[in-house]
């Protein structure tokens, strides 16, 4: 790995503590990823990006800022990247997926807060994430009580912009979200000093739709009987898509898909025949949270789909490209960013259950695992309907609750192992 220490220092990071993370990551990545057999060659690009996750892309952001550009950090897939991109800013995901940052978050937050929120705050306050140092503005949203209150604490140290996501999907709620996106556009224009033109916004919509289409194309290979790529690898690519340059990752995903097409022609599978196919649903899995995929796939299952924010909710539907005025395009963004995402923050949310059933069929899942990050109340409670409706539909389902630590791995192995055995008998 190249040496990024001077960049990290200039970003005001706690380099010594951050080094601990840098030391741990290659081992973990090696165990989970590089140990896989028969990986597609085009995974090399994504391996490189992970190996240099806190170097390569941050260096590009530093360069962008040197030229007067701005960086906007976001936490949630309800917040449209098209807006900052159309204003000439770079939108990026933020660190939130490792236990490494959790103790830092617990200095400010109750222990009974979800690990994703704790990790986010820890990464910022402990100064151990370059993306959290680089962003000029952080866009929070009130999708749950934990986030809503955590942003207040975060705002003591960071420039926060909060978007008010409605919790129902009535016409007046769409109208409200439409206004919020208009407000976000104005905010991004202020931040960058650039006026957004219809051409800019149309270009941004096209750019990000291309990324979605590439991810959709990638997902389509998981519907095959012979699956040419592991679930773990697709998860990794999805996670990287939150950080990487959109045009570049689109190309890289398409390049990988060309290779997968060849594999598909030759019926190449990375899994043995008869491997049980698992659909994951529930709370997000941010990088480097590969825990469940790793457990499932080392126990002899295959993850074929994630009905998650780090999954189909992120890429399944494209934004309508037919708008010509800013207003029209924002209406289309509203449709996509509210209407097409079925987060448990909405009530009621039966579209999510419909999605799980539809996806289970499309991806020929043998069973569904409903994953809940500890202390995520909304997904935990919604699990009641997930389980009941899947039971009714005759789809086996297992609910598991976990966090970022490794101390429940053996218990998870027993539950997931038993579930796979049950599907096999």
């Amino acid at each position, binding site marked *: 790995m190249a040496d990024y220490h001077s960049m990290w220092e200039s970003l005001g990071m706690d380099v010594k503590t951050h080094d601990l993370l840098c030391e741990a990551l290659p081992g973990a990545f090696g165990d989970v990823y590089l140990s896989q057999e028969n990986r597609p060659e085009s995974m090399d690009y994504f391996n490189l990006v992970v190996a240099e996750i806190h170097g390569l892309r941050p260096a590009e952001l530093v360069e962008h800022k040197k030229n007067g550009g701005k960086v906007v950090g976001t936490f949630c897939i309800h917040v449209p990247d098209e807006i900052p991109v159309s204003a000439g800013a770079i939108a990026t995901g933020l660190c939130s997926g490792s236990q490494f940052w959790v103790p830092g978050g617990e200095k400010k937050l109750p222990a009974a807060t979800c690990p994703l929120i704790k990790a986010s705050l820890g990464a910022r306050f402990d100064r151990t994430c370059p993306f959290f140092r680089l962003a000029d503005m952080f866009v929070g949203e009130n999708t749950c009580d934990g986030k809503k209150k955590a942003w207040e604490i975060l705002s003591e140290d960071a420039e926060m912009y909060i978007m008010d996501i409605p919790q129902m999907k009535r016409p007046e709620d769409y109208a409200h979200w439409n206004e919020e996106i208009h407000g976000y556009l104005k905010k991004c224009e202020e931040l960058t000093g650039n006026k957004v033109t219809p051409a800019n916004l149309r270009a941004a919509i096209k750019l990000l739709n291309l990324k979605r289409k590439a991810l959709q194309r990638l997902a389509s290979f998981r519907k095959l009987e012979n699956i040419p790529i592991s679930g773990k690898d697709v998860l990794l690519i999805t996670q990287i898509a939150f950080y990487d340059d959109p045009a570049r990752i689109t190309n890289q995903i398409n390049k990988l898909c060309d290779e997968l097409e060849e594999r598909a022609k030759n019926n190449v599978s990375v899994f043995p025949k008869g491997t049980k196919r698992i659909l994951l649903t529930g709370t997000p899995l941010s990088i480097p949270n590969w825990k469940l995929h790793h457990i499932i796939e080392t126990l002899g299952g295959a993850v074929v789909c994630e009905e998650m924010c780090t999954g189909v909710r992120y890429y399944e539907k494209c934004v309508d490209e037919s708008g010509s005025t800013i207003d029209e395009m924002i209406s289309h963004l509203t449709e996509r960013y509210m209407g097409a995402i079925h987060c448990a923050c909405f009530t009621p949310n039966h579209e999510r259950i419909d999605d799980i059933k539809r996806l289970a069929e499309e991806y020929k899942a043998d069973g569904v695992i409903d994953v809940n990050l500890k202390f995520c109340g909304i997904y935990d409670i919604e699990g009641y309907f997930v389980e009941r409706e899947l*039971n009714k539909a005759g789809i086996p389902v297992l609910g598991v609750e976990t966090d970022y630590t490794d101390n429940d791995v053996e218990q998870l192995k027993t539950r997931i192992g038993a579930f796979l055995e049950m599907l096999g008998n």
Partner: protein
Amino acid sequence: MLYVGIDIGSTAAKAVLIDESKTRILTRILMPSGWNSRETAESILNQILSEGYSRDEMRITATGYGRVSVPYADNTLTEITCHGKGAAFLGGDNLTVIDIGGQDTKVIFLVNGRVIDFVMNDKCSAGTGKFLEVMANRMGLTLQEFFSFAERGRDIKISSMCTVFAESEIVSLMGIGTPREDIACGAVGSVVSKVASLVSRKNSHSNGKFFLTGGFCDSAFIIKKLSEGLNVEVQTAPDARYAGAIGAALLGK
């Protein structure tokens, strides 16, 4: 070919040797899991060999938390699959199996001998054998004494959410002079209510026939309390503590 099932749980290790026709249990072994699962596994094998069987004529399947520490096993399976199979052998093909283990409590739904669903306690040991062990220790009683105290006690309410909290609850109860009999009875009640809540989460699967496996199968008091808590006669069998090992042996190929 003979079939051996080895179930190394968090507290006790169980093993059985089953005949070629998979109908008769020839040998039963029960020992504490001890500090080292690997050593425990070794001494189980030695004991079987010392009875005159040879390794070549046996198919060995390991289960339980220590299943990964049985290097000589031909196969490993989770304890859910094995308890289901063992319970079907002992109690019939259509059952709701309750296993109160050392660190896990599980409810397994069997239809025509197949596991169709299961539910386990979450990470905390509340509602498990460990919970009762912690409570007995806290009151200076062996588990045997603990149950005979409980039988004489009055049912009081003790939390079933968290073992550590329940332990401090017990300290407070002892502090205000609550008789140990009542505390013991309350602790058993807490386990029973945990089991009942697990069962009720998947109630639609149950055909009303319940079968208890695991180390508490010979505790008449637990069975009585469970039957009261679930409002149904809970069945068990003398070999039910070996259910996991029996299932493992039967699943050997």
